[in-house]
């Protein structure tokens, strides 16, 4: 791949900063959710025995929710993220391999 132009790099910096902010917010949301699970499991085990949806206890359902919740937040992140612009020319597989050898040689 070639080099990105300065203006493209500037636009991408904004996108990177925005994506990082969105990522941190979603990370914070998940941390609270995960922390709640650890707290209940460690300090209120009796409550986690309580049957809930379908007769399954809170501990198991909360565990499933953490797994499914991670996937939902990941999808949300993908939707919210700004895509970086890449104005470098698209290379064929052979060109990529050739370029890689050149780069290594130069290094």
């Amino acid at each position, binding site marked *: 791949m070639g080099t990105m132009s300065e203006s493209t790099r500037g636009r991408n910096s904004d996108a990177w900063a925005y994506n990082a902010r969105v990522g941190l917010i979603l990370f914070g949301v998940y941390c609270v959710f995960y922390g709640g699970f650890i707290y209940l499991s460690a300090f209120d085990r009796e409550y986690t025995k309580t049957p809930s949806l379908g007769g399954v206890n809170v501990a198991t359902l909360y565990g499933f929710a953490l797994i499914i919740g991670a996937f939902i937040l990941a999808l949300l992140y993908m939707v919210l993220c700004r*895509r970086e612009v890449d104005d470098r020319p698209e290379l064929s597989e052979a060109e990529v391999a050739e370029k890689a050898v050149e780069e290594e040689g130069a290094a």
Partner: protein
Amino acid sequence: MKYDFSWPAFAVFAFFVSIVLGLSFYLGRKAKSAKGYYAAHGQIHWFVNGIAFAGDYLSAASFLGICGVIAFFGHDGFLYSIGYLAGWVVALFVVAEPLKRMGKFTFADALDSKFNSRGIKLTAAISTLIVSIFYLIPQMVGAGVLVKPLLGLPHIAGVVIVGVIVIVIVVTAGMVSTTWVQFIKGSLLVFFCAILVVMILNRGLVKETEVPQNQVVVKKDGAVTVDGKPQGHGPGEADIRPVGSVVSLPDPKQTSTGPLGPLEFIAAVQNSTIRTWSAKTAKQPDGSEVTAIKSAETKGADLLVRGSYFEKGLSPEYPRLDFISLMLALFCGTASLPHILIRYYTVKDGAAARKSTVAGIAAIGFFYVLTLFLGLGAMTSGAMDPTDNNMAAPLLAKSFGELPFAIISAIAFTTVLGTVSGLIIAASGAVVHDLMTNFGGMKLDDHGKVRAGKIAAVFVGIIAMFLGVAFERLNVTFLVGWAFNVAASANLPALIMLLFWKRTTKQGITASILVGLVSSLTMLLLSGPAFDKVYGLKAADAPVPFTQPGIITIPLAFLVLIVVSLLTQPKRVSPAVPAMAASV
């Protein structure tokens, strides 16, 4: 238990291995340059990379270890599934995109992108090597576990077979073949485990027809007796009986529930009484080892909350502290595992890195949901080996017939191959790219780098084989928990602070990696399980009273980084010169 050679299992295993090796030789021609060998030219499609993430991450620990812990302890094993998956949130939201921008081949590239420091290069490379080797141990132990029922060979044979095959895979085509092996393995694992779960749900729960007897196994001078008879399957011989049954169902009049839905199955286990098993080994004055295999009736409701794994098994003194520490290490560990992080260099850009992580989370998350059913299915299958909880998943498959057993065992073996390949690539990258070229200043041309990487892969593979034999007696997921503790303590604080704190200095990063690495390793190697299962000493004599050091060593590494960075701030520069941090 004594396992006999299984021809169907061997045939499926040989078929899978042939495909994997054939693919490696075919792809070998695409990995002539260093970028091809270590990062597959950065041209892997995001979906393939996402499933390869699953193939890389869902190791022997996830499959064999978690199923084993759930089968013997219930919900406690599922906690590993939750923690392993939650760690991907850190990887996606915090690490993926910047890491892709900052690095080239290895984790050390990213850490050192701002400073060009020899100290960072050295410590990050050492950390990569140690974490990779720690992670390799359970994979090799898993290989040894699998080969016993699959080929009827001893543990050491499995370790050597996996070691040799993986070295061939890595040496032939590096990251290109490793990616495709992981892609195939990830797809097969998730697909066939889903089928196995359907079979478990279709069988439902069946009440035991007779109360199984406790057993005593004595090992002396290489001979093994079970209940006073030589171990074997011939006349006059006896073997350890397979275990795992339901004492009473929710409806006491029923002998079987029939097919159940997913939530119905869990609720049925919760409202049943389960016969759980323990095997305790004690050394006798005459040098013999006596293992008492005992059953207990346990309420399902008690098995499906945090419980006996932490209180009776893992850490009787500080079960709550160990639990919190383990969950912290699992959460922080994923985004610090070098063999996972280098997968971000195999895709084109940040967007592809994000998309591949989401695909990985989908596949990995689905698999971890399945682990609860696999574990509970094994717990009630009547097929478990009470002396080896790592065998729960393959033996569960055996309870459905020889073919499911053959397929699941072969997939488990391929699972080990995929993960070990990734680990060896990460370790050889650390040796050649970080240590020899960047730190040591050795001038290697492109082919020289690839050749050196292949030689390093052979050495790392041999070390992994030795360790796989030495750590034979530990549960594989427990060992992976250790690797997560080391990775999270050594790597994550440095990575996070580099990304989000502008006052981070190279000295701070170097000190943080060193302190995180040394403190976590020291605490692990001085803990009860290491004393008991590795050194053969009394666990009670261990100076470290709990088994998961993350809760101390992760904050310690953060603290060290902050203090050292504040003490080593560069002298103020003229306002005309922009701060270096602002340019990153």
